C-alpha cells in the first residue's frame, strides 16, 4: 500500500514537465493571490525577525540561549510543544494521507498523540528535575559523561537530520506551488531563515516563533474545518457519505486500509510513534524552558489538548479535501493528479473554502510552520554538539558560556548547510513517512537510554553505551535494508529486511543490549554508578537541587 502510494507520488514527480507547466500557468492566473500570500509571509518573517532581535538583546547566558532562561510558562510551553508537533509534515502529510486513504490518516495521528500521556506519567517531571539544557544531561547524570554524551549527541543528530529532511522537502514543495519558485531556491531560503532565528535569538526566539505559528495554524485549521462542516450542514454522516461517493476507493476509506500491512508492521509503527516522541531531542529540550516540574506537567496537558484538537481538525480537513478538492478540475493536472502532489491537498482546500486571500494565509502559515519547526530542530542539534560534544566530551566541562555558545552558532550554520543539502537529495520522499523514520531512531536509541537511566538502578555506562549504539545502528541499518531505502532509493529488486518500520526490532535489541551489558558489568566504576542512583532518585522525585533553569 505504502509502496503503491509512493509509486503514485513518485509518478507525479517523474512528470515534472506536466505539473510544473500547470503550476506556472496557475501562478500567472492567480497573480493577486500570490501577492497576498507573499505579503502575509513577509509580515510573518518580519514579525519573527523583530522577536529574534528582541530575544538577542535579552540573551546573555547559556541558560538564556539554550533554555530561554527557564522563564516560559506551562501554557506557553504547551503551545510551543504543540507547535513542534504541528509541523508541516503533520499538517500537509496527514491531511494528504486522509485525502488518499481516509481512515488510515487517523491511525497515523493517534500514534503520534498517545505518546504524550506516557511522557507525562513516566518522564516529564524526572526529566525536568534532573536536566539542564539537553536530555543527555539526564542520561549521563550518574554515568560516564564522555561516552553517554557522545551517544546521546549522535542519537540526537541522526533524529534531527531525518526530521529536517522531512521539513525541508515540505518547504521546497510548498514554495514551489505557491510562489512558482525553484525547489532548490526554496530550500536554501528556509535554511537561511532558520539559521537566523537560532543564531541570534536562541531558545527564546525559537519558542516565540513556535507559539505565534501554533496560534496562527490552529486558527487557520479551525476555520477550514468549520467551512468544511458548513458545506455539509454540520452533519458528519453527510461528510463521510459524500466523500465515499466521490473517492476512488469508495467505502474502503472508512476503515483501516493498507497503511499497516500486517500485525508486525502495525505494532512496530505504533511503538515508533509512541516512544519515539519520548526520544525527540527538540521536544525533550522544551521541558528545560519552564521553571519547575509543576509547569512541565502543565505544558504536557496543554500540548496534548492542542495536538489532539489539531489532529481531529486534520481529519476533517482531509475529508473536506476529498469533497471539495478532488472533485474540482482546477486543482488537478492533465493526468488527474493533484497540482504539486497529494501533500498539497490541504493547501488546495484552503483555496476552495476561503478563496485566494485565505489560500495566501494558509500558505504563509504552512511556510511559517516549517520555519518554526526547523529552527527548533536546529537548536536541538546545535546544543547536542556544543553542550554535549564540545563542552562535556572535548573540553571535559572546562569551558565557558561564551565558547559554548560560539560552538553552538558554528554548528547552527553547518546544520543549515546540511539541511539544504539533504533537502535537495531527498526531494522525492513522502514527507509524513520520513517523520516516521526519525521516530524509529529516537525510540531505539535515545528513549531506552533515557528511560533506564532514570528508572533502573543497575544501569551502567557500559550497558547504556553498547545497548544504545546497538539500538541506533540497528534502527539505521534495518531502515537501509528495508523497503524505504533499499528498494525505493537504491533501486534494488527486493528488500533484505521486509518491514518499513524497524522500531519493534531495534528497541528490543537496545533494551536487551543495555540490560545484558549492565548486569554483567562488575567493574568498580559500575558499582559507583549504581551507588549514585539513590541521590539521583531523590532529586528526580523531589526536585531537590534542581534549580529553575534561571539559576544555573
Amino acid at each position, binding site marked *: 500500500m505504502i509502496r503503491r502510494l509512493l509509486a503514485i507520488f513518485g509518478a507525479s514527480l517523474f512528470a515534472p514537465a506536466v505539473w510544473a507547466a500547470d503550476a506556472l500557468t496557475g501562478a500567472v492566473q492567480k497573480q493577486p493571490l500570490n501577492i497576498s500570500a507573499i505579503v502575509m509571509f513577509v509580515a510573518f518573517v518580519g514579525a519573527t525577525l523583530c522577536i529574534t532581535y528582541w530575544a538577542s538583546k535579552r540573551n546573555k547566558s547559556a541558560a538564556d540561549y539554550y533554555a530561554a532562561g527557564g522563564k516560559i510558562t506551562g501554557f506557553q510551553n504547551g503551545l510551543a510543544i504543540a507547535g513542534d508537533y504541528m509541523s508541516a509534515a503533520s499538517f500537509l502529510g496527514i491531511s494528504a494521507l486522509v485525502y488518499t486513504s481516509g*481512515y488510515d490518516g487517523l491511525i497515523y495521528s493517534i500514534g503520534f498523540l*498517545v505518546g504524550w*500521556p*506516557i511522557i507525562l506519567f513516566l518522564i516529564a517531571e524526572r526529566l525536568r528535575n534532573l536536566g539542564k539544557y539537553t536530555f543527555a544531561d539526564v542520561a549521563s547524570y550518574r554515568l560516564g559523561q564522555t561516552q553517554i554524551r557522545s551517544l546521546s549527541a549522535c542519537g540526537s543528530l541522526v533524529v534531527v537530520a531525518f526530521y529536517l529532511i522531512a521539513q525541508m522537502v515540505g518547504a521546497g514543495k510548498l514554495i514551489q506551488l505557491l510562489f512558482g519558485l525553484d525547489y532548490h531556491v526554496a530550500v536554501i531560503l528556509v535554511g537561511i531563515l532558520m539559521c537566523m532565528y537560532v543564531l541570534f535569538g536562541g531558545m527564546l526566539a525559537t519558542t516565540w516563533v513556535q507559539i505565534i505559528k501554533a496560534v496562527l495554524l490552529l486558527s487557520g485549521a479551525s476555520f477550514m474545518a468549520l467551512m468544511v462542516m458548513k458545506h455539509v450542514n454540520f452533519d458528519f454522516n453527510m461528510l463521510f457519505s459524500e466523500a465515499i461517493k466521490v473517492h476512488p476507493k469508495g467505502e474502503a476509506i472508512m476503515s483501516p486500509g493498507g497503511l499497516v500491512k500486517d500485525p508486525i508492521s502495525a505494532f512496530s509503527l505504533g511503538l515508533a510513534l509512541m516512544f519515539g516522541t519520548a526520544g525527540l531531542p527538540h521536544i525533550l529540550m522544551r521541558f528545560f524552558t519552564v521553571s519547575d516540574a509543576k509547569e512541565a*506537567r502543565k505544558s504536557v496537558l496543554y500540548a496534548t489538548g492542542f495536538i*489532539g484538537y489539531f489532529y481531529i481538525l486534520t481529519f476533517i480537513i482531509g475529508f473536506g479535501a476529498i469533497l471539495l478538492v478532488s472533485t474540482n478540475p482546477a486543482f488537478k493536472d492533465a493526468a488527474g493528479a493533484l497540482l504539486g502532489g497529494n501533500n498539497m491537498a490541504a493547501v488546495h482546500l484552503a483555496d476552495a473554502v476561503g478563496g485566494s486571500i485565505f489560500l495566501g494565509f494558509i500558505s504563509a502559515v504552512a511556510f511559517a510552520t516549517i520555519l518554526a519547526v526547523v529552527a527548533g530542530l536546529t537548536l536541538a542539534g546545535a546544543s547536542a554538539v556544543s553542550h554535549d560534544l564540545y563542552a562535556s566530551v572535548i573540553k571535559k566541562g572546562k569551558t565557558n558560556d561564551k565558547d559554548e555558545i560560539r560552538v553552538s552558532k558554528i554548528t547552527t550554520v553547518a546544520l543549515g548547510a546540511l539541511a539544504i543539502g539533504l533537502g535537495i537529495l531527498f526531494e522525492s520522499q513522502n514527507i509524513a513517512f520520513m517523520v516516521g523514520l526519525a521516530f524509529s531512531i529516537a525510540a531505539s536509541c535515545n528513549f531506552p537510554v533515557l528511560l533506564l537511566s532514570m528508572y533502573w538502578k543497575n544501569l551502567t555506562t557500559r550497558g547504556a553505551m553498547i545497548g544504545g549504539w546497538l539500538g541506533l545502528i540497528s534502527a539505521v541499518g534495518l531502515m537501509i535494508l528495508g523497503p524505504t531505502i533499499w528498494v525505493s532509493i537504491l533501486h534494488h529488486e527486493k528488500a533484505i529486511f521486509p518491514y518499513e518500520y524497524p522500531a519493534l526490532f531495534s528497541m528490543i535489541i537496545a533494551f536487551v543490549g543495555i540490560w545484558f551489558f549492565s548486569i554483567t558489568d562488575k567493574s568498580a566504576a559500575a558499582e559507583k554508578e549504581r551507588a549514585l542512583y539513590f541521590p539521583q532518585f*531523590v532529586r528526580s522525585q523531589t526536585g531537590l537541587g534542581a534549580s529553575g533553569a534561571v539559576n544555573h
Partner: protein
Amino acid sequence: MNDSIYLSIQNSPRFKELVRKRERFAWILSAIMLGLYSAFILLIAYGPQVLGAKISPGASITWGIPLGVGLIVSAFVLTGIYVRRANGEFDDLNNAILKEAAQ
C-alpha cells in the same frame, strides 16, 4: 549539595509514601493508555472489519471514527487526571518533604 540531606529524604516515610503513591498512579494511567492503544492496534491488525463496520445500517460513519476520536480524547483526559493530582496532592506532599529536610 549535601549527601546527608539526600539520605534523610530517602529514609523519610513521607518520601516513601510520595514515591509509592505517585509511581503507582503513573503506572496505572500508563497501563490504561497503553492498553487502549494496543487494543486499537490489534483491532487494526486482526479485526479491521470491526472498525469498518457501520454504526447503524443507514449511516456512513463507521465504528472506527468514534473509537479513534475517543482515543484522542482519552489521552487528554488521562493527562488531565494526572496533572490535577500531581500538581495538588503530590506537590503538597513534596513540599512538606523538602521543608522537613531543610530543617
